[in-house]
């Protein structure tokens, strides 16, 4: 998570999605598995904006290193578009606000283990994602 490379971060986010599905998939309840399946589908669809955003940033700036990106002075519309894609991807992979409905059933069902891990991993990833988006876009 504490990486200096944008693509490593997107890979980490994608892996967080897979691990979350795996943790929930260990539960042998049909409702929970249903919810895990839906979350998995959303996570897979979200990998398009996630990796697409990182690739677009590479195409727009020529680098994926966050240090290099923080030194760039101008932010083109392409970078802003890529940042929106990246945010969409991260939201889908971690299952936050617009996609929360897929994860809600997982939390509601009793007996599903590691709920805190799933929740905490999403929260920590979001904090770092916001930091990375601030580094790329430099609004201040």
């Amino acid at each position, binding site marked *: 998570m504490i990486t200096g490379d944008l693509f490593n971060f997107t*890979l980490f986010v994608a892996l967080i999605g897979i691990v979350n599905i795996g943790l929930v998939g260990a539960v042998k309840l049909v409702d929970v598995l*249903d919810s895990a*399946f839906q979350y*998995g589908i959303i996570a897979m*669809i979200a*990998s*398009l904006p996630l*990796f697409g955003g990182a*690739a677009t940033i590479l*195409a727009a700036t020529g680098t994926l290193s966050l240090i290099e990106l923080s030194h760039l002075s101008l932010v083109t519309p392409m970078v802003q578009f890529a940042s929106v894609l990246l945010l969409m991807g991260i939201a889908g992979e971690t299952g936050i606000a617009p996609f929360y409905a897929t994860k809600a059933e997982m939390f509601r069902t009793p007996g599903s283990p590691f709920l805190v891990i799933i929740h905490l991993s999403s929260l920590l990833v979001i904090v770092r994602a916001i930091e990375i988006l601030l580094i790329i876009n430099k609004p201040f």
Partner: protein
Amino acid sequence: MTGAEVLVPSVVSPLVVSLYKPAILVGLLTGFIGLLGIAFKKGDLTALILTDIVGFAMLIIVAAVATDLAEALVLPGLVVELAEILAISEVLMSREMRKTGKNVSLIPLPLSLDMEILETAPTFLAIILIAYGAFLSGFTGGAVAGVGILFYVLSRTIRGVPSTLWEGVAGISGVAWVLWLIGFLMFFVTPQYWLLALFLSAFGVLIKVASKVGLIGVLGREEFKREK
């Protein structure tokens, strides 16, 4: 395309540069078609298969950048995509098994392949593959040796594989992984022992990859059987 002149070296022909926009459009269009398909078809299995189209769209967008760095990014993207589809299909299978109460064998074969060659040949072929894999060492060797183990297992599943054997293989895999990590650590901590570190990581990853390839799916199935 004002910034393109700065980023793209002059040796690249303008025709190649102009391909970027169509490639991105094709990628987004592919993703859109895939999403439309998911919206129209309501079946779980069709949704899973159609999400793979969205994954391809992702690969198109990454590959559209067309530098060597982008090429290096396609592979992890593909691997993550495959891992996700494997995980989701496993969840789907687990759910269906729970719903219907039926168990599914590791390789559902329509025919009964009870042939003599499956008893005599696998050991020989597996030994050759494992020996060649050990000679190659590293990741490639691990893959070759793993194919040998996988082949042995697949041809022996008809007779049945003892579950204790798999627990042993999983243990070896874990120890090999530690060896691999120690090898990598030695590169940084004590660079003067680089040869030892190289061999530790090479053979660690050999055993690790070999045992992992041989283990695909089998441990999960054992887990499922144990519960019943």
